[in-house]
């Protein structure tokens, strides 16, 4: 059981958020779910999570705007962020990757156990 790390989950689709949250919770993570970009920025700067899972298409502020806001913060600059998205080929994805997230994972290409394995690698 990993020591309890906190993961901020910024995902507007409640079904996906719940599935991911349940899996991460089962793996011993503390999960903070939020459903829009604005709330995501606020929660990230308030709680300083160990990892941020960030969707791209979000209400209020999109994923790449969240990333930009994080990078302007002293803590946020080195925050670990993984983009989880079902959007490929859009300018916003390339922008977000350019702005320095780890990588982007296409949700349909990754099962929940695979995502957990990936997260554990990033948190090591």
């Amino acid at each position, binding site marked *: 059981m990993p020591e309890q790390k906190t993961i901020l989950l910024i995902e507007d689709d409640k079904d996906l958020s719940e599935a991911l949250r349940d899996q991460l919770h089962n793996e011993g993570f503390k999960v903070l779910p939020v459903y829009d970009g604005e709330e995501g920025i606020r929660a990230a700067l308030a709680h300083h999570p160990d990892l941020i899972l960030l969707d791209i*298409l979000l209400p209020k502020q999109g994923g790449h705007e969240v990333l930009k806001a994080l990078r302007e913060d002293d803590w946020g600059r080195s925050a670990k962020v993984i983009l989880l998205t079902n959007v490929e080929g859009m300018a916003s994805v390339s922008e977000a990757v350019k702005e320095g997230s780890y990588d982007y994972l296409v949700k349909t290409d990754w099962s929940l156990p695979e995502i957990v394995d990936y997260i554990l690698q990033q948190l090591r």
Partner: protein
Amino acid sequence: MDGEYRASLAKRIGASVLVLGMLVALIYALRGYALDFFFSQIQPPQNEAELRDFVASVILVGGSALAFLLAALLYLSLTVKARAVAIARRMNKELLLSREQFRILYDSSPVPYMIVAPDGTIVNPNKAACEYFGLDQRKLTQVSFFDLVDEAEHDLIGLKERFQRSLDARQQELTLQTGDEKTRWALFSMHEIATAGAYPHMGLVSLVDITEQKRIDKAKTEFISLASHQLRTPLSTVKWNLDLLAQTELSEKQRHYWDKIYSGNERMIGLVKKLLNISRIQLGTLAVEWQKIDLNEVFERTLDEVAVQAQQHGVQLKRELPEQAIATTDAKLLQIVVENLLTNAIRYTPEGGTVTLSCTRDRANLTIRVSDTGIGIPKDVRDKIFSKLFRAPNARDMSAHGTGLGLYMTRQLVEALGGSISFDSREHAGTTFTVSLPAQHNSSA
């Protein structure tokens, strides 16, 4: 001086020299007779008065001859000058006409034109340029050309240096900012012209607007990306909830149904991916990301992806890979290509068969082969195998699954990577697909 004038002048000078020469020759030839005649006709002067008359006569004759010569020369020069003036007038008239024609063409052209100095100073923008930038001529000549270029999209320092080095540029795409702060895209061309003025050379700039085309391309890309999001989101929901369900206790029957739902959902995910890739290829919006990659990493990842399928089909997966292979290509697209070929090979190989992935690399090229001991491709359908939605009859008989899109998409992706694909097949014995790709990619800066 034009050629005609020079020819005319040469003729006149030539004729004059010839006549003069003939006269001199004649006088020289007849000098004896002339002198005899002269002295037979004229009495030598007997006294001073007669000598004076004689000298006066000589002076008069000589002077007249000289005057005649000078008159002839003056006439020649005046004729030459008049001819030169006539030709100069004609040339000037033609020049003025040509300038007027150019001015009308330049001013009335729907193509934005302007003349730009190496330091970016804009001179004489035409009407279309003023309309394009939403600035009147006075305002447009007060801004620098570099102020019109979107600095977020272009390296302005590099552009300024280029202008200093050369005022020739061919069909470069530029993102521009207009006076009313709108973004426009144009194909920019510039030709160096000699000028009289502060700058000995300036650039004649023309802009072909491609804003509409860029907006359509951007809209197409965003539509496909949004469509991919809309199609994939419910598929992700099913996939992840199935993952959670698999972690609970399921009866044998429930597990059986779970397998069906899961594999159906995975097929749908694969189909959506293929359709999206094909749409991007057909719309020309597929973006290739060239990177130096470790090919073996891509191959191992792909083999992992198909390992379960191979196991389920009872097919052995083999690899013949170099110890190290680095190439410049797009890792994601390459993985799609190899995965598609491997998936096909496994699907169409009977239980107990073998599928082999091999790769060789020389200095310039990469050769990837996927070989199987499967059903092969019948001779009569080999020319259709890369066609959209085509499935060979024996493939349809062996497996109900398959969209007929895989090889079509694979070829398009291989071509996008600068390569080619071919195959060799024997019915009932197996098929080898060979993909040849350049190992390096030269992209222009």
